């Protein structure tokens, strides 16, 4: 403001980006002092008044939480619902009443000490599950005490401010949103903390884990870069101009994205398609839900083996958590260990990618295969119709026949001991080896679906090790040879009336997705962050445009022709 230009020194605070977007504004720091409420004796005659105060404040707090609910999506709303339960907890009421009536303490101390007891207990339990809840509980306690003291300590920010705080409760965050803040920086919190969830739901650019942000930022202008996770204090004029431009672009982009996320998955001709997510770890589910995706088209499971969590029980718990976290179906790929995913002890191979991996290895180590199948069929029994099994690295028909035999044995074994299973779990093959693509017509007779793994398919077709930087230019997943094989697989699937989807990187790339649609594929699975760009492209064209594109792709003689044709095609 009144600073002379020469004194400006940019300072940068780094954090974890949790809600993207850019904010430019003046910083406002909320450095709340931790509240300490001291015991204060009351007279017998004051008991009814203090109890009445408690009841009224509780009512107000519930009202505040209810007001918040209207802003939130389902996940965030559940957080607030459980906070309402906490506020109305009968044990809280009993202990508060006891503190007032028996210990003759004021209502503020009664509320404060009662909540503090539970906060300490939860801290002691050491359970990871509640670490996030402890911050919420402390905030709830402090707000409750404000209300019984009739303090209006509700937080208020200037419109357009970039708010910086150690931590905030969901209640406070929604209040700040109503004040019209531009961005949020928190010293604490993680990707799935309440504040992060809600900031994302409300579309407030936000970074968390910004160490000492409240100390470093005092006042003045700042830029919050919610994409790269930076807070730039006292930025230069040039930087502000640059970010203003970025901001304009991203906010337009964001509006478009929101529109395309919520819209139907349908081409201009009205043909439906399905976009699902590739997933490996549980926390990624948040992102899946954020992008409005209901199905998991590829669940990788190798990490269970590699991190020693592959007992039948641990596996079942993992599959169950995934199924609980999403609405639709999950395609679970059997352990695809080997190749580059080898944390190996059993002797090195000269050519690991051409070696003992995927189904080849599972058929040799049948105890591992059987325990995974058991965990899957048991889980499927609890969630009928929502689980599918995908077999990796099939290269010859015998492998399919043999794995089906093992599956039958496992199913019988489980049924004999009276375990409820889903006997109709669809079985699919990962088509990622050229031989499998070439005999797809034969393989299709044995299974319910194909999933084309384009990364390995390109690697094996072009004989290029993906990890070798000397030949990385040769790894071209757009190469016509790869497309020929995909076309064969689609034809085989269609002729045998089985489903076919694609789960490699090709599906998550706009060229790839459009070409695949043109070849007749209606099911694409990709990393959640690719969903919006793919969807935007697919809803922008007609079916015949996609078919023309596919024809052009198949008539090209190299990748470059395909890429340059696509950029022209896209522009029309």
């Amino acid at each position, binding site marked *: 403001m009144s600073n002379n230009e020469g004194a400006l020194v940019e300072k940068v605070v780094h954090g974890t980006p949790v809600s993207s977007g850019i904010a430019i504004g003046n910083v406002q720091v909320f450095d709340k002092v931790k509240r300490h409420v001291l015991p204060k004796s009351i007279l017998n005659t004051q008991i009814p008044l203090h109890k009445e105060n408690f009841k009224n404040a509780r009512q107000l707090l519930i009202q505040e939480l209810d007001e918040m609910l209207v802003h939130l999506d389902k996940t965030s709303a559940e957080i607030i619902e*459980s906070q309402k339960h*906490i506020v109305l*907890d009968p*044990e809280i009421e009993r202990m508060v009443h006891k503190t007032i009536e028996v210990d003759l303490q004021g209502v503020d101390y009664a509320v404060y000490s009662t909540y503090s007891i*539970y906060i300490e207990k939860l801290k002691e339990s050491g*359970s990871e*599950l*509640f670490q996030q*809840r402890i911050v919420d509980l402390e905030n709830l306690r402090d707000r409750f005490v404000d209300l019984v003291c009739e303090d209006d300590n509700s937080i208020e920010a200037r419109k357009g401010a970039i708010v910086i705080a150690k931590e905030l409760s969901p209640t406070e965050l929604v209040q700040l949103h109503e004040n019209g803040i531009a961005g949020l920086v928190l010293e604490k919190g993680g990707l799935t903390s309440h504040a992060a969830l809600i900031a994302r739901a409300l579309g407030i650019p936000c970074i968390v884990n910004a160490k000492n942000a409240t100390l470093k930022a005092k006042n003045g202008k700042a830029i919050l870069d919610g994409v790269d996770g930076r807070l730039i204090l006292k930025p230069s004029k040039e930087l502000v101009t640059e970010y203003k431009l970025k901001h304009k672009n991203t906010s337009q982009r964001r509006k478009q994205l929101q529109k395309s996320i919520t819209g139907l998955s349908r081409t201009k001709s009205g043909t439906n398609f399905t976009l699902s997510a590739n997933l490996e770890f549980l926390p990624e589910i948040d992102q899946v839900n954020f992008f409005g995706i209901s199905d998991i088209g590829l669940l990788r499971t190798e990490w269970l083996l590699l991190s020693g969590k592959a007992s039948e029980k641990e596996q079942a718990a993992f599959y*169950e958590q995934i199924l609980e976290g999403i609405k639709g179906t999950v395609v679970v790929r059997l352990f695809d260990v080997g190749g580059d995913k080898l944390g190996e002890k059993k002797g090195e191979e000269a050519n690991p990618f051409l070696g003992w991996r995927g189904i080849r290895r599972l058929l040799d180590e049948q105890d591992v295969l059987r325990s995974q199948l058991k965990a899957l069929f048991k889980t499927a029994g609890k969630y009928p119709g929502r689980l599918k099994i995908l077999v990796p690295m099939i290269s010859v028909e015998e492998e399919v026949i043999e794995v089906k035999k093992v599956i039958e044995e496992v199913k019988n074994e489980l049924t004999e001991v009276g375990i409820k299973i889903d006997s109709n779990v669809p079985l699919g093959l990962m088509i990622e080896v050229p031989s499998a693509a070439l005999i797809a017509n034969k393989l299709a007779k044995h299974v319910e679906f194909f999933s084309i793994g384009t990364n390995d398919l390109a690697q094996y077709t072009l004989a290029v090790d993906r990890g070798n930087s000397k030949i990385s230019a040769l790894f071209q997943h757009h190469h016509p040879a790869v497309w020929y094989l995909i076309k064969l697989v689609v034809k085989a699937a269609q002729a045998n009336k089985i489903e076919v989807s694609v789960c490699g990187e090709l599906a998550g790339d706009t060229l790839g997705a459009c070409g695949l649609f043109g070849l007749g594929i209606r099911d694409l699975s990709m990393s959640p962050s690719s969903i919006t760009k793919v969807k935007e492209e697919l809803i922008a064209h007609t079916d015949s445009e996609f078919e023309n594109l596919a024809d052009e792709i198949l008539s090209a003689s190299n990748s470059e022709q395909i890429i340059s044709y696509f950029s022209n095609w896209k522009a029309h």
Partner: protein
Amino acid sequence: MIKKKITIINPSGLHARPSAALVKAASKFKSSFYIHLYGYRVNGKSILGVMTLAAEYGAELEFEFDGEDEEEAMATITALVADKFGMHDE
């Protein structure tokens, strides 16, 4: 008064959401409801009480209902636990 032993089968245990579901269902009954675990006894209608148990997957709880609708309450709540607190249909 009736008592019954129950095992938690939710993969991530009795975290905040299942605790809320349990308390919500239990609060509809007139009977008093206590949960025993590792020698602790907490009010089953108190979400904070239930949360402080920090019951994990496989924990064996004992439910204790006392009151006119105790049978119905026991049946409802044990079914809810067996159904993993409805956490799979989200």
